């Protein structure tokens, strides 16, 4: 009788690259099948997607634009995950960052000198996200209330509040375009670069990645986070105040997501409008996972994911195929990575049994 036995490997097998490759291939195949099912030529479809994202500088700039909020949310989730905390609430924290930033831009304009507006907007956006993460953080740190559910619920609350604001008290008196607030004064607009829509947010995002990397690797606080994420027992033993640390990390994580909202609101929309909450918060979870929680890997993964999204849009424009194919590919890649992750950690041994 042949029996399959699952054993944990002594050393964790594949490198991240190997895993990514093992995951991308099944995804590409699944996508190809779907394309063929709707009568499209897979090779052509993929080509269009690729060129749509990386074909020329202009398209790539759009990828960078998409990647900007993704870097922030990916970073946010990665930071929290290092302490074994699931911040599923980036979507809501992003929205609240947008709300606070918008509030500052719309109502405090007369109090803040123009050159200081952008720093203030960034600060208030960070604060908005941080504030929105505060209650779930306290509930988790103090009472072990499951943060997956609380942050998830807060996502919905945030979106509803935002809608209430821009349909109600903050409604644009001139009522143009998408439902939303009035446009911000130019002092709150993020500068754009290279004659594209690439804006300040991208550079702040990348800077945040590098800062976080240094903090995690080279500071005592970062060391404590790593310890807590590895072993709660050892963390308590070493005198770390886990409650405080959890709150701190979740607040900062929320703040980073808030910056994602800020950068969308001040960099692209230039107002608070419908279309802010489109799922970047959830994408952040995928990015953090694919980046292996490494802050330096986050921008690259964000760009790849951004490319996928933009490529999907291009597909829609050119071949009239729904852009949601990118979601399908995202989901498939993720599922395939989960599967291949298994093979990197475990080995299957075939044993022969006597009788």
């Amino acid at each position, binding site marked *: 009788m042949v029996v399959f036995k699952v054993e944990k490997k002594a050393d964790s097998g594949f490198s991240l690259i190997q895993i990514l490759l093992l995951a991308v291939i099944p995804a590409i195949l699944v996508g190809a099948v779907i394309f063929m099912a709707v009568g499209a030529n897979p090779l052509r479809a993929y080509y269009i997607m690729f060129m749509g994202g990386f074909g020329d500088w202009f398209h790539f700039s759009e990828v960078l634009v998409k990647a900007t909020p993704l870097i922030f949310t990916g970073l946010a989730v990665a930071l929290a995950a290092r302490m074994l905390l699931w911040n599923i609430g980036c979507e809501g924290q992003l929205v609240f960052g947008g709300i606070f930033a918008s509030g500052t831009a719309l109502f405090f304009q007369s109090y803040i000198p123009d050159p200081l507006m952008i720093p203030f907007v960034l600060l208030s956006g960070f604060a908005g996200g941080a504030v929105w993460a505060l209650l779930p953080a306290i*509930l988790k740190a103090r009472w072990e209330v*499951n943060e997956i*559910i609380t942050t998830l619920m807060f996502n919905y609350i945030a979106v509803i509040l935002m809608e209430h604001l821009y349909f109600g008290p903050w409604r644009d008196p001139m009522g143009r375009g998408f439902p939303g607030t009035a446009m911000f004064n130019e002092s709150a607009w993020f500068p754009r670069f290279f004659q594209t829509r690439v804006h300040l947010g991208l550079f702040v995002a990348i800077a945040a990645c590098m800062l976080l990397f240094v903090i995690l690797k080279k500071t005592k606080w970062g060391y404590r986070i790593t310890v807590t994420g590895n072993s709660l027992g050892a963390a308590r033993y070493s005198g770390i105040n886990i409650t405080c640390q959890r709150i701190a990390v979740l607040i900062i994580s929320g703040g980073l997501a808030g910056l994602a909202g800020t950068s969308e609101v001040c960099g692209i929309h230039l107002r608070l409008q419908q279309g802010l909450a489109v799922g970047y918060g959830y994408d952040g979870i*995928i990015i953090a996972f694919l980046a292996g929680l490494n802050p330096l890997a986050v921008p690259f993964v964000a760009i790849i994911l951004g490319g996928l999204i933009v490529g999907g849009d291009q597909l829609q424009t050119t071949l009239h195929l729904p852009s*949601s194919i990118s*979601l399908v590919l995202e989901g498939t890649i993720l599922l395939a990575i*989960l599967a291949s*992750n298994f093979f990197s950690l475990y080995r299957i041994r075939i044993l022969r049994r006597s009788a």
Partner: protein
Amino acid sequence: MNDLIFIASITLKSCIAVLLASIGEIFTEKSGILNLGVEGIMLIGAMTGFIIGYTTGSPVMAFTGAMLAGGLLALLHAFLSINLHASQVISGLAITIFGMGMSSFLGRPFIGKLGIRLEELDCAFLDKVPFLGRILAQQTFLVLIALMIVPLSWFILFRTNLGLNIRAAGEDPAAADAAGVPVKFLRYGCTLFGGLMAGMAGAYLSLVYTPGWKEGMSAGQGWIAIAMVIFSTWNPVRALFGALLFGGLNALQFYFQATGAELIPTYILRILPYLLTVLVLFLVTALKRGGIGTTPSALGNPFSREE
């Protein structure tokens, strides 16, 4: 009086999808598996149900197809979680994303099309029943099925050996395994059941509630169903009340819109389900209340005998 009937009717109508999905998820979580893919499965169920209904004209085939599609996705989640020890959070999220994309992609040609509609229960018998009769008259057969599933689920979970085994598997899989409970098999079964229910819920949306197909038409009801599981402290009967509450808040919104009155601002009504869920979760976790229903201890952790 008419207003009350109006509200009650919409309450009942709008609670069904959430109710079905949350009962399915209750079983899944009771057995120890966290399935965050409910939203995606619901959408796939909605799309599949609509397409099959549109092309075959048969409600039975539509619902069956939707449930099977949902079941398949749930099995994928089960395989990843149970056999491949994948992170259940990520796996569920991946399935939601996949489901969202797939349903949107394949459903595109069917947007705006007129599909089948389920008949309402309006009949002579119900005309004679006061109040309740008029509420039920506007519902479909599926509502009766859903309402029967509630006590049936409760009975299975708390008054049969199957339910005992499921609960043991979710609390302490090692102990359950030692007692001879087929933990993995039960987890597969419960996850599958959750998928069937979520698929049914989705089909309900596209064949009864709306009806029709639209991208992302579940609008987060899958997530609400997951929240409802906690809100109901993993108890099917309480899930009914939670779903009715959700439906009621929905109905109130409609009512205020229809009559122009706004006793409670709409956005507060919309926030309430989520806020209440957080409150209940707090009570259940921090104060350890909830009686028969508390978080299954092994929820989200993979189980393997030789570890």
